[in-house]
């Protein structure tokens, strides 16, 4: 079967790719477009390592088909820093040592940014609830919550 042609925007750039009908968006990003910042932990929607946004909605890219993306606007971790300038969430993750092995980090950063866009001043409980779909085997989560709280504060200019 012929591969499908898809045209969309990824991190603000017009992007075109060919994909197989059963290929997940995660596989398209990693294998076809070499955007390997988005990670795979499970491929079944459980771990959140593959988190991205599609038209501003937080999703697991392993549960989305590449074929579905015509005309969509996708944001991945590669678009988070502006050149050399890290996003405040990225800076705070480093400052608060909110990562060890780092496999969960791109997904957590994307999910956290999505939270702060919807709710600039989340409580600790709201942060933990929002990030419940992002598993981290290393940190124990506390440093992640601290980093998100600190970044939220900075972004609010408080």
């Amino acid at each position: 079967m012929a591969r499908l042609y898809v045209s969309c925007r990824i991190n603000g750039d017009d992007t075109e790719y060919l994909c197989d009908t059963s290929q997940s968006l995660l596989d398209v990003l990693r294998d076809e477009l070499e955007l390997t910042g988005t990670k795979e932990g499970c491929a079944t929607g459980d771990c959140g390592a593959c988190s991205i946004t599609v038209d501003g909605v937080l999703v697991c890219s392993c549960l989305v088909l590449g074929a579905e993306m015509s005309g969509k606007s996708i944001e991945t971790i590669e678009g988070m820093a502006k050149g050399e300038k890290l996003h405040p969430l990225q800076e705070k993750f480093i400052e608060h040592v909110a990562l060890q092995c780092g496999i969960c980090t791109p997904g957590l950063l994307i999910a956290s940014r999505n939270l702060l866009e919807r709710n600039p001043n989340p409580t600790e409980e709201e942060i933990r609830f929002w990030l419940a779909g992002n598993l981290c085997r290393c940190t124990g989560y506390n440093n992640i919550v601290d980093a998100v709280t600190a970044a939220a504060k900075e972004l609010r200019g408080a």
Partner: protein
Amino acid sequence: MGIHRGGQESSAPLTPRSKSGYAHFHLEGSPGPNTAETVLRAWRHKEKGMSDMRFEAPATVDAAVALLAGAKGITRILAGGTDVMVHLHSDMVEPELLVDIKRIPDLHGISKEAGGWRIGAAVSSMQMMDHTEFAKAWPGIIDGVKLIGSMQVKGRATIAGNLCNASPAADSVPSLLTAGAIVSIAGPNGKRQAPAAQIATGPGKTTLGKGEFITSIFIPDAPPHTGSAYLRFTPRTEMDIAVVGVAVSLTLDNAGKCTAASMSLGAVAATALMVEDAAKALVGSTVDSAALDRLAAAASAACRPIDDKRGTKEFRIRVAGVLARRVAAMALERAKGN
């Protein structure tokens, strides 16, 4: 053990757990729990290379029906894909045709109509939660919707998909039943309507015919002083599958006496159940302790559960009663508040 405070307790990333809710119904062809084996199968799937599956994203309901009715082999609707993608990637199903219904404008949106609310089949759980007016009208449905997986999953999962996937443990279904939801169905023989209670017939099985699919779900307006609620029991606080789920909807008169009540149970039989005796237990009472006892007994009596590693029959029967009390108390408070 890693405790994700306020969120989930997580043991290992590959912990056995079924997101499809089939854990206690190990039927042939149905997904098992999300074991390390499921995940390995998902990984192996990729090595198989190109698939023959056709992908279509029609712009109208009629075009979708024509595609589905014209296909010879297995077809699947792709709504939010949170079940379909897992099934595809674990090679549980190899459809000939996948029809993405999200490009059909008519299937989007939550709208107020005369007599009720209409939820399009492409509306995500997150869109429902964000709709404050609907959430206020039917908090019990939103209680269930909020429990569908992570925020990422809720960003995609639809309630029509939750219903059509026909897991006995589907969290949005019991409240749809107590609300008296009616689904609109399009198919090769035209349009028809059916109560939501008549869609699932068993794990993974529905009454939808070839070429048929749900276009929207209509939820009738509740009378004044109606309250609805849903709670489930899970071993973990979040990101888990219901061992028992209970939904209650009840209506009071101006004096605080119950004039109507309905209750539905999830995960205690092959489909979500309506408990006919719920009205008998509550109507005419002020939903006092004696009435709640009757309701709990009716819930336990209606259960037809099976044993599995997530809960024994006895446990499920008992928990159904305990939850029925708690859910009815929640529904009562909400009924008093509106």
